């Protein structure tokens, strides 16, 4: 698999992971990375360098929006929440990834690997 394809798969899966997570509740960057790592058993991991460019890109496209909020300890955090545009994006993205994995499974039997 070339680096380009790997990078696109990583990016695409990252977008879906973030959209799916934010569909549940607004979260700030560190929490997004932490939850994705924990809930995928470490298979998907975001570093600071991989997370924020993707979040900013998604914000530019209008899928998520960020707003600053101060928590009870007086710490400022930038929370991201899904926009209606992002919510609309989620269903077809899920569908495409499902189709992608089914196609890969029928070709390479990855689900039984």
């Amino acid at each position, binding site marked *: 698999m070339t680096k380009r394809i790997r990078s696109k798969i990583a990016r695409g899966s990252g977008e879906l992971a973030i959209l799916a997570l934010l569909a549940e509740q607004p979260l700030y960057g560190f929490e997004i990375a932490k939850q994705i790592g924990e809930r995928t058993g470490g298979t998907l991991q975001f570093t600071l360098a991989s997370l924020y460019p993707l979040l900013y*890109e998604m914000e530019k496209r209008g899928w998520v929006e960020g707003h600053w909020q101060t928590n009870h300890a007086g710490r400022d955090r*930038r929370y991201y929440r899904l926009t209606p545009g992002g919510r609309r994006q989620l269903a077809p993205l899920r569908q*495409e990834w499902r189709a992608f994995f089914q196609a890969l499974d029928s070709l390479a039997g990855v689900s039984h690997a």
Partner: protein
Amino acid sequence: MRDWKELVKERLAVQGLPESDEEEVIAELAAHLEEAYEDARLRGLTEGIAVEAALQGVEDWHVLAANICRAKAQEDSMNHRTRSLWLPALVALLGASVSLMLTQFLGMQPHLVWIGRMGMTFYWPWLATLPFFGAVGAYLSQCAQGATRARLAAGLSPALIMLIVMCLILPWGLLIDGLDFFRLVSFGLGLANWVVIPGVALLVGALPFLKGHSSREGMPALE
């Protein structure tokens, strides 16, 4: 207590961003590093190792700065729109216009259909080429990962431009010559002649390229 904002400011050389954006990015990344550091401390790491653990998330600050600038820049969406809409639309429009000019230049006579006192002109050879140009517009838009609406607009651009031109002309015509039934029917026939029928021909060609979801990079492109 470590000044995480200062640390980020020193390392992250984001250029070309508005100052408010830059400050916001620095504040957000600093908050992330601080959280990562505290998380590491809670896991029992010493202060030095916790700082290292927090900073591990960035291999190269220059690459990060460049990626953030690219992600935040508005230019990309402009370029994307140009690639996925304006350029394919222009190609389809030019193609259809040149095809009509050639049809006339080669002396092919239009087929006249009279409806009462008014006639409709059909350049059949030209109409026959329109599905091809509709397909070209939609295909180029699809290649540029245009949304379905952009592909449709690019494919139908020759008819849409004619619609705009006719809608601009109509009020002037009514203003100068006054409103009468004959003029309105004539406008309606013109609309059918130069917008609806060519639009349908263009749509026939564009249809195969309208299918499929178009998240720009949401899915891996394996082709």
